[in-house]
């Protein structure tokens, strides 16, 4: 098996964004995932989000681990650099890449096996460090590439395709991200693109560790009765806390909302999150409330979706480490080497 080339011929009437790019310019290679896979919908949502944000594709770096989800960066933003790393260790590679050049936009794509099992440690620590990224967990509760074993996000009591009941507690990735210090936490559903695209846009623009858990049904191994990650189950139990709109800047807000139930969360980079609340009491800037609400919902078997938490004053790892503005990969001898005169002084101090 090699790769399949996608035709580059564009229809002349395709809509262009502010950069003159059509959505096709944000596509990648043809997906090799199963027909109907939730992950392909997430790739499509990412294409839409980047296109709408008017981001030049080559200014994005896509990093992933191993698994079905981690293959997807090859299927969107074909003119971006991508890095399919090792299983469960994408967060550290993304951290290093980000340190080398903070000017690019970093997308981390992972799955539930990648993030909640083998990579649980790195998942937690990348959130603690506040690495500026959009971390997208394509969560289907199952190992797809190895044909249907439970993953660590499979709910207690849910059944595999072969009818085996899962007796282990599920890892709550949203709860963990909240506890570990992620400054933007949301959950989406691959079957609801309208909700997902603004969530992704805001995550991409968020200047800190943004985590988006996307329930993404596996049509081959986890879309049956008894699964809590199937299209049917998620549609039935989806409780959205809000409908989100993302505005790159305050000036560009043109749509007016009905008063009441809408809150604006200005971010310190000038962008604005506009939330139409579906649950009247939900305050997405309150981390403790977010932890309580997701835990309560999980206990009832509901899947809470939408923007769950955002810290409008978030900072990232570069700020914590107080690094210079110029990306490290552009610094040369002049900026980095202290020179021979200094070395003589150092030698003298060692006698």
């Amino acid at each position: 098996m090699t790769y399949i080339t996608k035709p580059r011929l564009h229809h002349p009437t395709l809509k262009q964004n502010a950069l003159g790019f059509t959505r096709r310019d944000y596509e990648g290679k043809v997906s090799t995932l199963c027909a109907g896979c939730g992950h392909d919908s997430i790739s499509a949502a990412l294409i839409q989000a980047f296109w709408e944000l008017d981001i030049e594709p080559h200014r994005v770096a896509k990093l992933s681990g191993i698994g079905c989800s981690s293959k997807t960066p090859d299927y969107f933003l074909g003119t971006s650099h991508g890095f399919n790393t090792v299983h469960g260790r994408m967060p550290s590679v993304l951290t290093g890449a980000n340190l080398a050049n903070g000017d690019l936009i970093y997308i981390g794509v992972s799955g539930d096996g990648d993030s909640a099992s083998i990579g649980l440690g790195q998942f937690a620590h990348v959130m603690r460090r506040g690495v500026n990224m959009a971390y997208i967990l394509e969560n289907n509760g199952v190992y797809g590439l190895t044909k249907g074993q439970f993953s660590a996000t499979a709910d207690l009591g849910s059944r595999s395709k072969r009818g085996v009941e899962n007796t282990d507690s599920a890892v709550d990735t949203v709860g963990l991200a909240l506890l570990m210090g992620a400054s933007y936490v949301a959950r989406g559903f691959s079957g609801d693109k309208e909700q997902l695209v603004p969530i992704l846009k805001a995550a991409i623009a968020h200047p800190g560790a943004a985590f988006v858990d996307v329930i993404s049904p596996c049509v081959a191994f986890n879309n049956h009765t008894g699964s809590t990650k199937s299209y049917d189950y998620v549609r039935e139990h989806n409780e959205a806390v809000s409908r989100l709109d993302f505005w790159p800047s305050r000036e560009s807000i043109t749509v007016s909302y009905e008063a009441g139930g809408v809150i604006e969360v200005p971010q310190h980079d000038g962008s604005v999150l506009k939330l139409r609340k579906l649950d009247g009491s939900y305050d997405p800037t309150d981390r403790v409330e977010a932890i309580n609400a997701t835990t309560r919902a999980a206990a009832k078997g509901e899947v809470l979706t939408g923007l769950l938490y955002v810290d409008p004053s978030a900072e990232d790892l570069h700020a914590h480490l107080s690094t210079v503005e110029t990306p490290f990969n552009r610094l040369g001898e002049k900026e980095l080497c202290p020179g021979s005169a200094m070395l003589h002084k150092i030698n003298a101090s060692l006698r």
Partner: protein
Amino acid sequence: MKRIEAVNDFVIKFANVNGSGSASANELFAKSFLRMGIPVSPRNIFPSNIQGLPTWYEVRVTEAGWLGRRGGVDLMVAMNPQTWDQDVREIDPGGYLFYDDTKPLPKSKFRDDIHVVGMPLTEITNATFTDSRERQLFKNIVYIGALAALLDIEPGVIAELIGEQYKGKEKLLKPNLNAFQMGYHYAEEKLKDTVGLKAKRAYGVGDQIFIDGNSAAGLGMVYGGATVCAWYPITPSSSLAEAFQRYCARLRVDKDSGRNRHAIVQAEDELASIGIVVGAGWNGARAFTATSGPGISLMTEFIGLAYFAEIPVTIVDVQRGGPSTGMPTRTQQSDILACAYASHGDTKHVLLFPEDPYECFEHAAAALDLADRLQTPVFVMTDLDIGMNQRLTKPFTWDDARRYDRGKVMTAEQLEAGKEFGRYLDVDGDGIPYRTYPGTHPTKGSFFTRGTTRDRYARYSEEGSVYVDNVQRLLHKFETAKALVPQPVLHECGKKTRFGAIYYGSTSPAMAEAIKALEAAGIALDTLRLRAFPFSEAVTDFIAEHDQVFVVEQNRDAQLRTMLLSELNADPAKLMPVLHFDGTPITARFIAAEISERVQILNVSPIKKGKAA
């Protein structure tokens, strides 16, 4: 009774309790010789413990400048009752035992072939200081004072060193000077001529500097242009990352903005450390990690990825005794094989073998260049003996005309001009392809990096021929590395000889001294000091030119010898292992004894063929 008499050539060993404040006092003692122009070679022998367990500090005073461990002890400063019997046993006959005789010890606790020098250290410090911690700390300075008097160390030199150490801390300066004087005067009055070991001003130090290998490597990383350091604390490498941090704070801060031209991340484990380094290397920053054997074991999956996906990575392995947790505070050269072939599948990695702090500095900077040039992991294989002991070494040098070799990086201009880009395409015939940094060009030069097989244009492929093409190129690239790595250093004895010896890394100082000893015993030996893997032609030639080659190493399994056999197809009968692996640094006495014994056996003339025995 015999009395060891020596000037500027003896070994003093301090037996202390960890955490008692002896380390800085003992270092002061070692430095006082340097200030008198007499080379010393000190070594810490310490436990994996913070407080309470035995620790030793061995100072070899050597006007000849031999920096290896000599073996044997001429004067034992026995300050630890726990290890008393062992310490007393270790003294060479005719040597000296210096101890605290505040409490009398039974005669059975001594030996009658050594000279015993007692001094009531506890009594003296208790009479002067009231605080128990002060009593403990100043007791160390009191015995340094006494030793200065016994050994003729110039008191002015020690006073000067104490002055430098407590500059701006007057409160500490005075009591330290007092304690020193107290010990000095006591020994001058009451212990005159009890020790036959003497220091005499000399001119053996020259312009050499005194520094540990970890600090030197940390500084080398600063000079070599590393901007990202990710690490996880592990003995004996932690002080390397900490030294990098210290030097960066001083040398790598933008004066105008006050912001850092470096990023140091103490990661959650070694997997994350190497992951961060791989990510930074992929994105064009010079990055390194420092670790030891157990860390290498954890990193191997990523090392394989960096090898296969061709990402520059620099790893310093400060080796300790293995396997497993092994001997965390003892030295060995036992990670050679684990690093050379780290990770599953067919892999080979570049290794550098620095011999001392000077080369730790040099090789650190060289490794960053090599990693970029070869787009592959490069290991700097130092060890605890070099890394954690201060050593006299050549002063560091840097040529301001030197430019960092960033390797083959295709720029936006080159892509725009239509230069063909294939991430794994060998355009120059050296096996090294071009790479691009992410974000270089809007439409050209992007590629997908992966650990799976791919074709010359980085497109996923599992076709056999495509796979073979790629891994053969990697082998060709490794061939290219041979000429780029630091070349071996040949030392010819000046006579025609059948015997040669190959060695590397921290074995150097002991080897240099062993050669002299062997020469005095009439054994002529050519030597080749390896400084890198892959092995260059010079190594093959050296083996070919000698009938017997001793391969001197500090591990049980003759790891380098194994590599010489498999990589160069050398004759196993020709390569004789000389192995030292008890965790202490190899000594000249050991090497000379091992080699001379074998030479004697080899030199026995065989019975002539055809004659009856």
